[in-house]
């Protein structure tokens, strides 16, 4: 069963931006793309344990605030050094203006 966890209201994230979200001891990064879609990945960069929610979002790319490693947050793919390992991504849905995150998509 998906574990849909309410994260925030849609207006809590600017377009083309990211916020951090903690649940059950884990960090997630929740993105709103320039065209208003929502996405979620692991909260930490795979290079060092830097929180991605302080990073810059441009188009579909999140940059680590520390070393500028880049990921496509819509797929989790690692795009630029120094990162080589991609980010785990998580399903997101919007219902009645609330953003929900599925923290356990494998089950």
């Amino acid at each position, binding site marked *: 069963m998906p574990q849909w966890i309410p994260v925030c209201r849609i207006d809590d994230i600017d377009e083309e931006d990211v916020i951090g979200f903690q649940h059950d001891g884990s960090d997630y990064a929740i993105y709103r793309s320039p065209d208003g879609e929502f996405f979620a990945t692991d909260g930490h960069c795979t290079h*060092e344990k830097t929180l991605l929610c*302080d990073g810059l979002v441009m188009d579909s790319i999140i940059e680590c605030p520390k070393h*500028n490693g880049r990921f496509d947050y819509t797929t989790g793919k690692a795009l630029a050094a*120094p990162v080589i390992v991609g980010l785990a991504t998580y399903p997101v849905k919007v219902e009645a203006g609330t953003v929900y995150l599925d923290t356990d998509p494998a089950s």
Partner: protein
Amino acid sequence: MNGMVIVGAGQCGTRAALTLREAGWTGPITLVGAEDLAPYERPPLSKTALTATDPPGPAAIRDPAGLAAAGIEFLPGVAAVDIDRDAHRLRLADGRDLTYHRLLLTTGATPRRLPLATEAADAVHYVRTHADALALRQRLHPGARIAVVGGGFLGLELAASAVARGCLVTVIEATPHLMGRVVPAPIATIVAARHRHAGVGLRCATTVTELERQDNTLRLTLSDGDTITCDTVVAGVGAVPDTTLADKAGLAIDNGIRVDSRLITDDPDILAAGDCSCFPHPLYGDRRIRLEAWRNAEDQGAAAARTVLGADEPFTAVPWFWSDQYELTLQITGLPHAATTEVVRHRRDRVDIRFGLGPDGRLLTASAIGPGNSVAKDIRLAEKLIARRATPDPAALADPSVNLKTQYR
């Protein structure tokens, strides 16, 4: 032999080797490292390598298996001693010769030594290698009195790390202000206040004139006449580019190995990059600069690789630096001393972003300090604006309700 040889297995040389392979270099790549360890990141040496509860291993850029998987022959623990430019041959300290098609020098920099002509000078710690960090770490026990000579990024990070280990710390800085050469005064003031709050003694505008051993302690005499007794002295007073190999080979030296905008030395088959290279920067009137910085090492390593692969593009990356001290991170992009006008954005979270503009209104630099990575987005956007030679509206820069992205689009 159609091989690429890289001297120096730090951030820059390793990034060059990896980029060469990723971007399609099919010939051999040999990476020569003077240290025994596989390539590792140096930024943690003044921070987590000292503060982590258990002594950490080096933060590998790639482990030996990863290098092998990329087809990079890694030769650790051996220095390069001579270049025969006519024969395209590099001589190693163990007598081996490597023939190169192109040679990249990423020899880095070595800590500047304190000018002390005493036997006790041997007791001064310097931090450049993982082994250096572990040696200092052993001295950082609770209550230990640590004198840090040098109030720049490195010295202040060492001070903050020593505080985290419960040490009693004094910082001795020769100039009147901390980080005086590179950081706007208001940011230096925040940093000084944070160190004082942590109990660090700041002694600015004074230098160490004498160092003596007294039983198990060290006694420093300062130029203002004071003396400081401590258990350990560590110095972070800048670094000297390692140009010995290049100099011996007759390459031009000019505050580092002199390279053109493509990072090529005055020998077309030899490039130099990273801390050891002095290059012209097109964003700053082709002024020659040399940067000792993690990001520059990354960027120039990748750029040198692209040059070797035939790209004809000048190196234009905007300088970027950071420093972590306590819970604060300072970030600087661009070259602060080029600016003539300052615009300050007072953010609602009480963090100030300081922009520096040139006489033509062009953004040349931005800097800020704040908790965690809270300044990263604004500084990164500023960097992008600097890169495209933007002349952003000063009123928009100053207004915290205006997203800086509006100036980028």
